[in-house]
């Protein structure tokens, strides 16, 4: 039986719940991760922060207007809104009811979770709940590809 630990990325790239939104955005940009795991001071996985959620909080209306004046107005408004929240803590914008998986979980279970929750990343924890890495849709597809060859 294939285990999560055989296919996961063992990366502890994360933010702490007390970190600022500004630090989080910079980190998302540098790591090219639109979603980051949130941990506490002991590296326990406590939730997830999505770039989409930050955007939702700063954009008054979604982009997509044909009127370019309106787009410009919205962009300026979004920048202003962001400067108001950038020093706020991650814990105010994170999702806490995030599904995580264990290193020793069966890979088949992951397919089910990813399909049902439409998650592009699922974070992996150990038995004590400490962050150990993540599994992406790409990792899942790679596992399925290996299976199809057998």
């Amino acid at each position: 039986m294939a285990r999560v630990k055989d296919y996961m990325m063992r990366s502890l790239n994360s933010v702490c719940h007390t970190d600022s939104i500004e630090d989080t955005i910079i980190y998302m940009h540098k790591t090219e991760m639109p979603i980051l795991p949130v941990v506490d001071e002991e590296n326990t996985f406590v939730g997830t922060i999505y770039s989409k959620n930050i955007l939702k909080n700063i954009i008054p209306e979604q982009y997509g207007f044909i009127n370019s004046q309106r787009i410009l107005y919205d962009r300026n408004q979004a920048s202003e809104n962001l400067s108001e929240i950038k020093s706020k803590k991650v814990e105010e914008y994170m999702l806490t009811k995030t599904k995580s998986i264990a290193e020793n979980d069966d890979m088949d279970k992951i397919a089910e979770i990813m399909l049902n929750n439409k998650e592009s990343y699922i974070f992996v924890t150990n038995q004590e709940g400490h962050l150990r890495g993540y599994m992406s849709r790409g990792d899942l597809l790679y596992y399925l590809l290996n299976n199809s060859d057998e």
Partner: protein
Amino acid sequence: MITTVTLNPSIDREYFINEHKPMKDHYIYDSENLQISPGGKGLIAAINIKNLGYSDVQNIGFIGGKQGLFFEKMVQDHNITTNYVYTSDEMRNNIKIIAKNPPSNTMYNDYTYSVSKRSVRELKKRFKRSIRKSDYILIAGSIPAEVDFNIYQELINICNKLNKDVYLKASGEALNLALKVKPKFVAPYFKHTHKILDFKVEKKDDYITVGKKLQKKGAEYVIMPFHTNRLLFDKDGSIYMLSPKDYCIKNLLGAGDAYDASFFDYIFQNGFDFIKANRYAAAAALSIAENELVFLESRQQIEKNIGNIIIEKLEV
């Protein structure tokens, strides 16, 4: 868990060519003649520890730019848990040209990597929350530009507060300052100069004097490189000379890292014994040096060399 710290890692690119001449272009068609690997003192030790069978080994440090993403993927291939603070600057590349005729080895080492204060703050926070489950912490290597020389001192301070033993492999001012917070094991190394604690060391007596000074300044145990030997300074004041016998060195790349990794391996398997741990570590280094390897592959290769390591107590 074992944590290793590499603040100044690099992407190492080795080019194997026939002859290395100025104004001569080289074309490499065979992939065997171009090797790209992740480099950095603590990282290579982490890969060795992993190869010796430890399931949980993490490497903490800075990596930068788009090359940082590539570097992290390379490290992941060794099943090391990566814990990197991404910086704005691109990380370093070290280039080595290895020629056959005549045999030559030319290195172009990049020391341009720079890290912002924000990234240093982030690293310290990340380090504190990530070492709580670590049994040992190995801090090794140089530090990037713009990072204060007291960084190792600050990291060891965090370890001390959490009751974690530290093995420090450092040089220069970073080493001098780190001694103030009393790291348990200190293995100084020479970088560009032949100085430790700002003293030029040439003769055996100089090495002994400096080793004692390191202990006086805060190190509990000192493992001092002395040509192909090591001088071991025990906590009780005893000094030992460790030497390999009947050896034929083919390669020194990776030998020091194998030493550090195996030192921990011995302690994990057998409990702490400073002399025996060093004998085992030296046997590991010898197996790398004699076999043109970079990474340790198994404990068997270490054990067959233990008989070739001599340790003598010095009367000083």
